[in-house]
């Protein structure tokens, strides 16, 4: 019983953190702090997995939690931090969308996400916090993160901040995945996370190269990469 309450509290907290971190990522321009926020988000994701483990009561999820922590909260941020240091670009200057508008759009996206996910929430038992299952908390949050990730991908110029957007997107997918499928099989999750790490590495390297080739690397300049 107490574990259930604890789990619910934990869920509420972690989902809240996930939400706020996504907003922060839209909010500020500095890449370094973006990576820091991303690390926090990874940690929150790991905690979320723990909370689900508590509710579902299967030990496998704790392993997943550890892996997630290692990858999303530590490994990937480190890689990105190094890439930033090497590329020497530390600010996302003039994104395609000014932060104020971006933030307002995030508000609308959140509403949309919550709207879309109400069926899921209803399916997993009621809309009240008391009896709501984990999905009630995190399905909408995950969806929001997916949307925010896309927003970042579409509106940022710097390749690295687009990597950040991509990672938010992935975190969102993971959040939804954990919950709705009540825990993806361990192997799948590991595979996905490793792929992500790989992608992050490659993109980091690439952006470094681009930096070397064409000084700054505004992706908008890369219109020559056709067929």
């Amino acid at each position, binding site marked *: 019983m107490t574990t259930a309450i604890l789990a619910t*509290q934990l869920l*509420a*907290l972690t*989902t*809240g953190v996930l*939400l*706020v971190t996504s*907003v922060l990522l839209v*909010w500020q321009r500095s890449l370094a702090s973006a990576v820091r926020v991303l690390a926090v988000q990874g940690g929150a994701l790991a905690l979320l997995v723990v909370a689900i483990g508590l509710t579902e009561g299967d030990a496998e999820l704790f392993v997943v939690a550890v892996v997630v922590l290692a990858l999303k909260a530590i490994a990937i941020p480190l890689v990105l931090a190094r890439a930033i240091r090497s590329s020497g670009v530390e600010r996302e200057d003039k994104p395609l969308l*000014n*932060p*104020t508008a971006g*933030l*307002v759009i*995030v*508000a609308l996206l*959140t*509403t949309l996400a*919550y*709207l879309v996910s*109400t069926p899921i*929430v209803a399916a997993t038992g009621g*809309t*009240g*916090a008391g009896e*709501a299952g984990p999905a*009630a*908390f995190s399905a*909408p949050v995950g969806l929001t993160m997916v949307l925010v990730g896309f927003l970042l991908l579409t509106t940022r110029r710097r390749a690295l901040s687009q990597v950040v957007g991509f990672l938010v997107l992935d975190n969102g997918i993971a959040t939804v995945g954990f919950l709705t499928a009540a825990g993806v099989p361990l192997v799948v999750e590991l595979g996905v996370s490793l792929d992500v790490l790989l992608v992050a590495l490659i993109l980091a390297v690439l952006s470094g190269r681009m930096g070397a080739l064409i000084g700054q690397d505004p992706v908008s300049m890369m219109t020559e990469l056709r067929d």
Partner: protein
Amino acid sequence: MNAAETAATLLVLLLQVTVMTALAPVVAGITRQARARVEGRAGAGVFQPWRDLRKLVTKRPIHAAGTSWVTRVGPFMLLASSFLIAALIPLVSAAPLPLVPDDLFVVVSVLLLGTVALALLGLDAGSAFGGMGSSRHMMIAALVEPTVLMAVYALSIPVGSSTLSLIVANRRDDPASIASPAGVLGVVALAVVVLAETGRLPVDNPSTHLELTMVHEAMILETSARDLAQVELGSWLRLTVLLGLVGNLVVPWGVATDATPAAVAIGIVAIVVKIGILAAVLGAAEVGLAKLRLFRVPELLAGSFVLAFLAVAASYLVA
């Protein structure tokens, strides 16, 4: 609620106003002192603002030719609005008057009365700086409005009422709601708004000497002697009360629920401690902050607006 109880509540409110008024300059002093210490200075002591006030009231006001009633009455309007807020917000006691409930919407609009008085004061002298300060002040006020109302909304949802004393009481009885995402987001948004409303960093620099960076200071460049004293006391009181509100929302314990002397005494001590701590933190934190460019301020406000909006969405569509 019978007449005796009403009288008691009224008495407590008056006591609360008196305490807050006495505390307000000290709060300003605390923030300055904390800042001084962090900067490695000795500082003038927390009672320096009181000395300044005592001196200001004994001087002869000067004002430019062609100023109107606003210059004479404006400062007092600001002060009076601050007094009224100090009475309305549940700081010492959470027992509202029967006919004048501490409705957050009412509180906000009384705040706006003071804001308008100050803005008109800035315009009245007909100097360039006054107009500049007034215009910036009103722009910020206009953009703060959505955030503050949205935060109010977020806070009022769990209670189903915008009455502050109920909100505070509800948070005291159900501590889980304080830690809940909605609760946290709402309070954070409100805190940002408080910084903007009271002209603290990063929105406005209270200790600047450069006219072109001024907002609040620019409006009162023409104000002198007792008028200045009223404006300063009014602004400090505003800061104090709003800090107290945030304090009571985060730590809703110690607020008196009835008018018994013991409870009231505890309430006074509690609120003074809360405000003191918040003021010290504010002063120290401001050392690490720089003033935002005026046109970056909307970003800050939009950000806190989104936080409040998330709080609302979260409390409707999940919890």
